[in-house]
C-alpha cells in the first residue's frame, strides 16, 4: 500500500532525527493496520526502548517470515545480551543490520567480510532513499538504546539548576526586608538565638544580593502598584462540562479549522472559518435558543470571536440537514429535555490567532483549549 510505505518512510525519518517515540508510534500504527507488514515490525524492533518490546517485534517478524535473517540475528543478539550485556548486544544487532544493508546494496560491510551478500526480499522492500538512512537510524539506536535507567541529561541538569536558582530568588523575594525578613521569620518560627538570627540575616542579605543581581524586578519593594489581579483562567478537560442559565454544555472534540469551511458562505471569511462542535443540553424548563454571544472563542492576541449563526446553519444544511453533521443548528431552539445535542459553532478567526480557547456565558474564567492556531 502506497500510504503505508510513505508512513514507513516517515517513521524512518523520525528515527533518523532521533525522535524515537514518534518513530515507534508510526511503526506500531503500521503493524496494527497490517500485522503482516514485516518491515514495520523490523523497524519497530529497531526503535523499541526495551528488550521485551524488541523481542516481541522480532518474534512477530519471524512469524511472518521464519527465515528472516535480520530478525533471527536480532533475537540471537537479544539472547546473548543476558551473558554479554546490552552494549555488545546492540552492536551485534547493528552489525547484523549493517550486513543486511551491505547485502541490500550489493557490497560487504567490514564487520562481515566473509558473509555472502544475498538478496533479501523484506529488507529490499524498505522504501529507503539511501543506505545511510537505515544506517543512521540504527546508529542512533546504537548510541541511545540502553536497558539501564539513564540519569538526567545535561539539558535536564541545566533546567534543574535554573529551577533551583529561581526557587532561591523566589524565597529571597518572599522573605527579604521589613517584617517578612528571613531573620524575623527564622526567629519567630524557631526561636533561635540572636547569633543564629544574625547569621540568618546575613544569609538573607546575601540572598537579597543574589536576587537583585539575578532579577532586580523580582525584589520585594513597597512601590508595587496595588492593581486588581484578573482571575486566573482555568482550562477544562475535554470531558468536563459547565452549566449556566439552565444549559449544560461541553465539547467532545475540538473540530475543524480547514480550507473547505471557507466555502460555507458566499461571503469570504475575514480570517479563517473555525468550527467547534459542542454538546448542549437544556435543563431550564423551557425551550431556548442559544444567543450568538453565548459561546466565545478567545485568542492570545486578546481578541474574542462570537458564533456566526448564518454559517453554522449553512454547515447543517449542506451536511444533509439536522441529525447528520450535527443534531441541531446554532440558531435552533433547544428543547428542555436534558438531552445533549451536538451543535456546530463557526467562528471567523483571524489567521494569526493562537491558543484558541472556548468559553461559555456565565463562566468567563473557565474554558477549553481548542487549538494552538487556526493553521
Amino acid at each position, binding site marked *: 500500500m502506497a500510504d503505508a510505505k510513505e508512513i514507513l518512510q516517515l517513521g524512518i525519518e523520525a528515527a533518523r532525527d532521533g525522535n524515537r517515540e514518534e518513530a515507534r508510534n508510526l511503526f506500531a500504527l503500521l503493524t496494527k493496520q497490517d500485522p503482516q507488514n514485516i518491515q514495520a515490525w523490523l523497524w519497530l524492533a529497531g526503535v523499541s526502548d526495551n528488550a521485551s518490546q524488541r523481542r516481541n517485534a522480532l518474534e512477530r517478524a519471524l512469524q511472518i517470515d521464519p527465515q528472516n535473517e535480520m530478525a533471527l540475528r536480532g533475537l540471537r543478539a537479544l539472547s546473548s545480551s543476558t551473558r554479554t550485556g546490552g552494549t555488545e548486544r546492540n552492536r551485534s544487532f547493528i552489525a547484523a543490520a549493517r550486513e543486511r544493508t551491505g547485502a541490500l546494496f550489493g557490497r560487504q560491510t567490514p564487520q562481515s567480510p566473509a558473509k555472502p551478500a544475498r538478496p533479501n526480499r523484506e529488507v529490499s522492500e524498505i522504501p529507503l532513499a539511501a543506505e545511510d538512512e537505515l544506517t543512521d537510524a540504527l546508529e542512533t539506536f546504537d548510541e541511545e538504546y540502553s536497558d539501564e535507567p539513564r540519569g538526567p541529561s545535561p539539558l535536564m541538569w541545566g533546567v534543574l539548576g535554573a529551577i533551583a536558582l529561581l526557587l532561591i530568588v523566589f524565597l529571597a523575594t518572599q522573605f527579604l526586608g521589613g517584617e517578612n525578613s528571613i531573620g524575623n521569620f527564622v526567629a519567630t518560627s524557631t526561636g533561635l538565638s540572636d547569633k543564629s538570627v544574625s547569621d540568618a540575616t546575613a544569609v538573607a542579605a546575601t540572598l537579597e544580593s543574589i536576587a537583585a543581581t539575578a532579577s532586580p524586578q523580582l525584589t520585594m519593594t513597597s512601590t508595587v502598584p496595588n492593581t486588581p489581579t484578573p482571575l486566573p483562567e482555568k482550562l477544562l478537560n475535554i470531558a468536563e462540562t459547565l452549566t449556566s442559565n439552565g444549559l449544560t454544555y461541553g465539547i467532545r472534540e475540538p473540530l475543524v479549522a480547514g480550507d473547505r469551511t471557507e466555502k460555507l458562505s458566499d461571503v469570504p471569511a475575514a480570517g479563517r472559518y473555525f468550527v467547534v462542535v459542542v*454538546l448542549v443540553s437544556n435543563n431550564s424548563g423551557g425551550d431556548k435558543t442559544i444567543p450568538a454571544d453565548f459561546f466565545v472563542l478567545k485568542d492570545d492576541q486578546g481578541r474574542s470571536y462570537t458564533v456566526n449563526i448564518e454559517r453554522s446553519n449553512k454547515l447543517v444544511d*449542506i*451536511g*444533509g440537514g439536522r441529525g447528520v453533521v450535527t443534531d441541531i443548528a446554532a440558531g435552533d431552539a433547544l428543547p428542555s429535555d436534558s438531552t445533549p445535542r451536538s451543535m456546530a459553532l463557526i467562528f471567523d478567526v483571524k489567521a494569526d490567532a493562537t491558543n484558541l480557547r472556548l468559553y461559555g456565558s456565565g463562566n468567563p474564567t473557565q474554558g477549553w483549549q481548542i487549538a494552538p492556531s487556526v493553521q
Partner: protein
Amino acid sequence: MATNAECQALLRTANRLFRFEDHHRARALLEIMSDVYPDEPQVWAALATMARDDAEMTQFLARASHINHLSTIPA
C-alpha cells in the same frame, strides 16, 4: 479527545505535517489512523480539515459527529 495516548501522539504528528505543508503525508497518516482508530472522532475531524471537496468534508464531519452523538454529557 482521543483517549489513546498513541493516537494522540499520532494526531500531533499529523498536525505537524499539516502545519509544515506536508498535506499529502498528513492525509496518508490520518487515513491509516482512521483504519486503526475508527472510533476516534478527532481522527475523522482532522481528516475533514484535509477534505478534497465539500462532500468528503461532510462525510468526515458526519462520521465524527456520529461518534460524538453516541456519547452523552456526564451528569
